[in-house]
């Protein structure tokens, strides 16, 4: 198998026993870039990150440097690290949090300095107790070394970091919901505009929200420089990308890869292919919100943001869920729709009602109570949630959660209509 250069998972690969300790972190060059950053200007740092074309790894692939350049002049400003990772199929941030927490802390320092932030929050989903303990320990160690706190690295710069635990709500991953949650409110997304928390966020102050993996890249961008970082990637997709591969696959796991390899390479070479005697049926290329791919149309497609978008889907947060020929697509779609229905915050009628309906119709087909009109009904309800069933979806709601629930419906009706019809007509799963 080809080996690919590692950036954010390099230390844990080379030093598995202690990659999480400050000792190992510093012995491998850690905190040198944060120390340097404290002596750099905001313009230089934002310019560097813009130059690297680092794209957000939380799902929307928004350019990090551009986001930072939007920061409104109001002060104080805040930084919130999004470690709420909860989209089914995604488990990459967990590995970064557990295995290399200092890399994140260093990324936090760099980002804080670049955005003149003096208080940063790391919002970790409540179920990630062990990752949160590792991060808190790293933060405590950094305070002890005076890399955090008053006058960091012997400068006049003060930086406080608070590790905050969520309490079981996927929607808090949406950045404005995350901010509400951090204010002690219900974790409901805020109405837009303002479109960016950088204009108005936590306590109505300018706020930068970035994903764990995004920030974990920063020490490396500063260390290697913009050109080296761009060289690791493929065209506009600079750097590496962490894929979480799960489902019916021989070697599930997180894989740090450059863009541009094909789906065939990822599924069959990198992740070991399917289990004995099984065929690939379909896969989700970028998390529960993404429309699915099928072997006939997509296996040779290069994995890039553009190619994926052109084919009507997205890489999202990098979750690849593989399904083999034993999979009942009705059941799989039901499970994904149930997720969105469970996690809808309920503010918008199309999302709240629509996801409940979709779940009910799918369940009724699955349990043999389906009716001939159900396929049309599924599409009808979907159209009410996301008008025209376009990609990217049209928004009828405050946040993209509602429209995301339509992706599995579009996928199964497009590629597996016959199977759904057979399911309805026979009253049992045709694979059973």
């Amino acid at each position, binding site marked *: 198998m080809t080996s690919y250069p590692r950036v954010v998972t390099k230390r844990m690969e080379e030093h598995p026993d202690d990659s999480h300790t400050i000792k190992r972190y510093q012995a491998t060059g850690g905190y040198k870039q944060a120390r340097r950053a404290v002596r750099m200007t905001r313009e230089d740092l934002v310019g560097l990150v813009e130059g690297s074309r680092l794209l957000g790894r939380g799902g929307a692939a928004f350019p990090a440097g551009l986001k930072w350049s939007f920061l409104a002049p109001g002060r104080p400003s805040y930084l919130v690290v999004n470690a709420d990772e909860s989209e089914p199929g995604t488990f990459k941030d967990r590995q970064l949090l557990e*295995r290399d927490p200092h890399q994140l802390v260093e990324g936090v320092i760099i980002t804080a300095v670049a955005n003149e932030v003096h208080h940063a929050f790391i919002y970790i989903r*409540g179920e990630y107790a062990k990752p949160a303990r590792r991060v808190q320990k790293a933060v405590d160690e950094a305070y002890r070394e005076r890399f955090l706190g008053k006058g960091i690295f012997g400068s006049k710069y003060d930086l406080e970091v608070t590790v905050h635990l969520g309490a079981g709500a996927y929607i808090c991953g949406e950045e404005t919901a995350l901010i509400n949650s951090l204010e*002690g409110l219900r974790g409901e997304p805020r109405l837009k505009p303002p479109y960016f928390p950088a204009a108005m966020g936590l306590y109505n102050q300018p706020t930068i929200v970035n994903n764990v993996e995004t920030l974990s890249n920063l020490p490396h961008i500063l260390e290697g420089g913009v050109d080296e970082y761009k060289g690791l990637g493929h065209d506009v997709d600079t750097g590496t990308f962490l894929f979480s591969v799960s489902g019916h696959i021989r070697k599930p796991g997180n894989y740090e890869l450059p863009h541009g390899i094909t789906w065939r390479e990822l599924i069959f070479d990198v992740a070991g292919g399917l289990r004995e005697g099984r065929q690939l049926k379909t896969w989700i290329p970028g998390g529960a919100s993404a429309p699915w791919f099928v072997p006939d149309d997509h296996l040779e497609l290069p994995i890039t943001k553009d190619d994926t978008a052109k084919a009507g889907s997205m890489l999202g947060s990098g979750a690849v869920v593989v399904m083999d020929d034993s999979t009942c697509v009705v059941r799989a779609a039901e499970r994904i729709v149930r997720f969105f229905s469970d996690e809808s915050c309920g503010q918008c009628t199309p999302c709240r009602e629509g996801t409940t309906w979709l779940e009910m119709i799918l369940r009724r087909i699955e349990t043999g109570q389906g009716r001939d009109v159900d396929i049309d009904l599924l599409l009808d309800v979907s159209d009410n949630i996301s008008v025209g069933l376009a990609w990217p979806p049209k928004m009828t709601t405050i946040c993209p959660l509602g429209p995301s629930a339509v992706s599995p419906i579009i996928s199964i009706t497009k590629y597996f209509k016959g199977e759904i019809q057979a399911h309805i007509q026979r009253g049992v799963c045709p694979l059973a």
Partner: protein
Amino acid sequence: MSRWRQETRERARQIMARYPQKRSAVMPLLYLAMAEDGYLTEEGMAEVAELVGITPAQVLAAASFYTMYKREPVGRYLITCCTSISCMLLGADDVLHALEDAAGVPHGETDAEGVISVEHAECIGACGGAPALQVNYELIESITPDKARELVQWLRSAHPEVVGTDELQNLFGGSPSFDWAIREDFGAIGPYPAFSPLGTAAPVGGEE
């Protein structure tokens, strides 16, 4: 007058000091209230309201939004079984049934002895080690229905003071999402996350 122990009140003060505005401490204080009473009681929420200076109704509005704040008593060991897509594909529904069967209660409920609660949940970020579950938010990856039954028996007979993820994984787990590499020093003491600022992380025994 506060019902909370001096120690808990001191802890609450430290937690509030971590935030620029007191109200931001609502979430950690709700965990503290759970740790104090075993679950989130009316009194606990009133205490939180008073500490941060909002009404009990505002605290309830926030608390009721999040699934990890349990407003009914739960067992000493809360077993949370993921049934989202990646786990479902690899047999999570059978694991959930095995748990319900061994515990003698349907999911969402607690056994008569108050020892074990079973619930199902959406993705817990362990999809590469599917099917996965947590005991008091300490993880087991690649569990089987048989191992799930054994887990319930073991919790009932061994009654561990501190639930440690490595012990659970060694006894009941299979291949993980990624190499865990290093043993974890701390574990959970109740059905809420073990996290040092909350005072809920206890050392796991026997190793040092």
